[in-house]
């Protein structure tokens, strides 16, 4: 017999070894996430996927599904926590969406829209972060990095290159590039690498492609991130 657990009253089948996130997405239930991407081993750092499992808050992207769990995913309290986390991500970096090439295609922004976030609540850090435009085809705008480590994981697990790493801890955390000069141009990154395309925000951008799709016709301009995420999950399973 298939094993099951329950999310918000809905019965979800799962196989041993699946996380709550994996089982939920396969069953068509969206759990807010940013550092999770079904292609890679989970990292569990952004905490947007926090759900309540049998009375305890856990990260759905790392927590294993098990028989009979009672999971709350959508509640006012959890969504308010998610909104606060998203607001912290916005004030910690420098996110000026009107001047960002990624606007409309950005998962950070789309999560904010999804949570009905209209302001940033906290005081802004306005911290000075660098832009590395040294590479001929790819640029990094550190102002928009949320340290999700997806580029780190993609470079390591798919490209076999280790171009990126996170250095420092807490508030001093930074994305660093593995090259003698620390610049992207001296790294092994190629524009065709998975790591160059995986960033959920506008921190890693492919040069000369920014406005090929006009604002207003971009992924999240009209579609919710939950529908987009579940549709791409479906595609991954079909193939």
């Amino acid at each position, binding site marked *: 017999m298939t094993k099951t657990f329950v999310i918000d009253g809905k019965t979800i089948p799962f196989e041993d070894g699946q996380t709550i996130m994996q089982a939920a997405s396969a069953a068509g239930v969206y759990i807010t996430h940013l550092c999770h991407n079904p292609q890679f081993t989970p990292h569990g750092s952004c905490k947007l996927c926090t759900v309540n499992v049998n009375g305890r808050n856990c990260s759905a992207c790392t927590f294993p599904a098990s028989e009979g769990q009672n999971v709350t995913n959508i509640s006012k309290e959890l969504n308010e926590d998610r909104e606060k986390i998203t607001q912290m991500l*916005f004030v910690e970096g420098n*996110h*000026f969406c009107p001047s960002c090439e990624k*606007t409309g295609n950005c998962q950070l922004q789309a999560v904010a*829209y999804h949570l009905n976030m209209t302001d940033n609540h906290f005081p802004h850090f306005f911290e000075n972060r660098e832009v590395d435009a040294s590479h001929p085809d790819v640029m990094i705008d550190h102002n928009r990095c949320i340290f999700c480590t997806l580029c780190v994981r993609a470079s390591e697990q798919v490209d076999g290159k280790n171009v990126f790493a996170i250095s420092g801890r807490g508030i001093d955390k930074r994305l660093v590039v593995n090259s003698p000069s620390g610049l992207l141009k001296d790294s092994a990154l190629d524009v065709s690498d998975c790591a160059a395309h995986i960033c959920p925000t506008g921190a890693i951008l492919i040069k000369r492609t920014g406005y090929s799709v006009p604002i207003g016709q971009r992924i999240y301009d009209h579609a*919710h991130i939950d529908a987009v995420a579940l549709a791409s999950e479906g595609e991954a399973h079909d193939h």
Partner: protein
Amino acid sequence: MTTKKVKVATVSLAGCFGCHMSFLDLDERLVDLVEHVQFDRSPLTDIEHCSDDCDIGLIEGGVCNSENVHVLREFRKQCKILVAVGACAINGGLPAMRNHISLEDCLNEAYMDGIGVENPQIPSDVELPLLLDKVHPLHEVVKIDYFLPGCPPSADVFWAFLTDLLAGREPALPYELIHFD
């Protein structure tokens, strides 16, 4: 019996007037609006100070100088509901992109060393408001009740928000109207 019109004040602080232009995009809906609304202090009326019983204050732009701070405090004091309108009011926006450059460097670039500057001197006159070290979003200075995101928020955003408020509903923007760009 006529019901009292709702008093709306508007101002542009460190903004570009784009939000005000977008507000004017309400076009013929403005005719419906003025049935219920009376404009108080606003660049649209040239009234210079808020009357002390304003209902709604719509603020475009962030806070970049001492005058902005005074105006914003006047609005907070005189308006029951204060609304941050547009990206700059909400996060400082484009003007806040100077925040990682020192004020001295900004002034030097604009008035001393910039290309095409003649008779270089840093403007300094008692009439001129002093620039703040950094540009701040409104909520860092006063309490803001509602936020209308967008650069600028579309006329539909203003319409949805104001019609909700006028009808006594808690304003809620549908997904299609929440944009940060």
